[in-house]
């Protein structure tokens, strides 16, 4: 029977061919936690009493959400995670190394893997052809301790994107458009699978932006086939040997097929307080929306390519009076490349401030919390009330280029004017 990407990847870990709607136990190749979900996972592993980690070399702890910490309580949680890493022998990615999913994308994630993480954006791993999905602390604790989890094989939605993106329009705009189209629960329990020549032409970072946001439509995963771009990425990261071909079968059954005409897309903005509350930048609602903070970073737009797109807009320009520009590189290697390539100078000259690598201001505990009544346009992945730390503030989601253009103009702005 022809298989979707989700069916194929889950079958590879179930020891038998499985199809949408079936329940199965799967072998987990890699499991990880971060500093907000990890301490609870450590408690659950202890309660389970099955051993600290079945495969410590395939288990990781990331200190990325509040990193470096701004609260003594969080710091104490970090101590607990470091102690767990030491006693279990698992990998530890400490303060300053970057966002879990982005670091894994550089060092670990490979086509054909099955990964679970105690973080909803774990689905980002799909960019490299891995079945990766977010779970709670207990589920991931069980996966760490036993090497297994159970899952429902999801139905798949086939998203076919065709044609060339116009200058100033990016993969972020594709995913915001899609979520606006199908809604924040439009893919609940389903696998979003991306095809078409536009997708084939996207680099791994471009795909990462899309896969990370599969969960924002309720998706269990956001999957891509592996191809030349995947191989190139693995080679750049010294992991060419991790490549394997993962393709959906011709004739696989999809619950729904969605066609997107890439040349018809504009830069998109999600308005507060829902990701699916989208408008194209030319919409009258986007006029004269003041921006107090422009934010670049997060797991969704945290690779070098994302900052490069913003720097192209910002080069030789400055933020508007009353608008601050806050930047968080996704990983340490992105940070280094931003230094060596001169991007740091572009951002500093433009009036920006640069945080240490990690989740930064996105989850709302530090490094850019908004004031009452303030607006932020951000290259992050969700804009729920209170997301960036203040329920009395307003978060608009957009691509890094749109964030950069908005920083210059001090209001929501169309990046195509600068391309």
């Amino acid at each position, binding site marked *: 029977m022809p298989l979707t990407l989700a069916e194929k990847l889950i079958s590879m870990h179930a020891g038998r061919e499985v199809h949408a709607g079936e329940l199965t136990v799967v072998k987990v190749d890699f499991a990880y936690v971060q500093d907000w979900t990890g301490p*609870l996972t450590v408690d659950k592993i202890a309660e389970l009493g099955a051993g600290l980690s079945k495969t410590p070399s395939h288990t990781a702890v990331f200190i990325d959400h509040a990193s470096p910490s701004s*609260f*003594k*309580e969080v710091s104490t949680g970090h101590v607990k995670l470091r102690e767990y890493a030491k006693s279990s022998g698992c990998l530890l990615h400490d303060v300053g190394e970057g966002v879990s999913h982005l670091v894994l994308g550089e060092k670990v994630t490979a086509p054909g893997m099955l990964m679970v993480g105690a973080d*909803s954006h774990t689905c980002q791993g799909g960019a490299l052809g891995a079945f990766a999905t977010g779970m*709670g602390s207990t589920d991931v604790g069980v996966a760490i301790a036993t090497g297994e989890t159970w899952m429902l094989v999801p139905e798949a939605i086939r998203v076919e994107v065709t044609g060339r993106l116009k200058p100033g329009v990016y993969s972020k705009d594709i995913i915001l458009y899609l979520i606006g189209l199908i809604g924040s629960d439009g893919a609940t329990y389903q696998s979003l699978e991306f095809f078409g020549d536009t997708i084939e032409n996207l680099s791994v970072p471009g795909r990462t932006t899309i896969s990370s946001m599969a969960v924002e439509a309720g998706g269990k995963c956001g999957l891509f086939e592996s191809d030349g771009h995947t191989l190139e990425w693995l080679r750049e990261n010294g992991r060419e040997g991790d490549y394997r071909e993962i393709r959906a079968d011709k004739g696989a059954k999809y619950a729904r097929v969605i066609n997107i005409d890439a040349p018809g897309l504009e830069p998109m903005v999600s308005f507060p307080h829902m990701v699916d509350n989208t408008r194209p930048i030319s919409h009258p609602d986007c006029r004269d929306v003041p921006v107090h903070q422009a934010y670049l970073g997060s797991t969704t737009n945290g690779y070098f390519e994302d900052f490069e797109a913003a720097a192209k807009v910002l080069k030789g320009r400055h933020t508007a009076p009353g608008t601050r520009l806050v930047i968080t590189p996704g990983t340490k290697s992105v940070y280094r490349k931003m230094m060596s390539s001169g991007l740091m100078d572009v951002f500093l000259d433009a009036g920006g401030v640069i945080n240490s690598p990690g989740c930064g201001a996105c*989850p*709302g505990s530090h490094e850019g919390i908004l004031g009452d009544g303030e607006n932020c346009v951000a290259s992050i992945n969700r804009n729920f*009330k209170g997301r960036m730390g*203040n329920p009395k503030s307003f978060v608009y989601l957009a691509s890094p280029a749109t964030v950069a253009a908005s920083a210059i103009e001090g209001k929501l702005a169309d990046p195509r004017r600068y391309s």
Partner: protein
Amino acid sequence: MSGKAWKFGDNISTDLIAAGRYAHLRTNLPELAKHVLEDARDEFRTGVKEGDFVVGGRNFGLGSSREHAPTIIKMAGTSCVAAKSFARIFFRNCINIGLPAVRVDTDRIDDGDELELDLAAGVLRDKTKGIELSFPPMPKVMTDILNAGGLVPYLKKNKGFKLA
């Protein structure tokens, strides 16, 4: 299990349930629980009584994987979360911690209605309205996890997943 309905709207995110600005309290659940659903409906956290029900609309629990969200709803003494639909991770987290989560047409329930949950019969009764709302059965493994009181006690008992 019976109690009063606390109604919430559609798309109650985990940020509304367990706000990011209280992330430093995640290692201190009793303190975090004092802020449960604070940004959705502030009076809930002080007014909720043992046995009460959280009643949402569509897509309840969307957003992050934080298990702290259902955990502090459970710690508030609630019987169950009822909603028209749930976000995937939140739903699974509820079951994993032993908090019933049921899918019913919550439009028929008003704030303050007296509710009663009969898990075995698959029915949520609105005693104020005199109506019964049935919910679809969960996969056996989820029912077993819920009945065991959560995933950890389930696994201690079964030594593995029993799907059939």
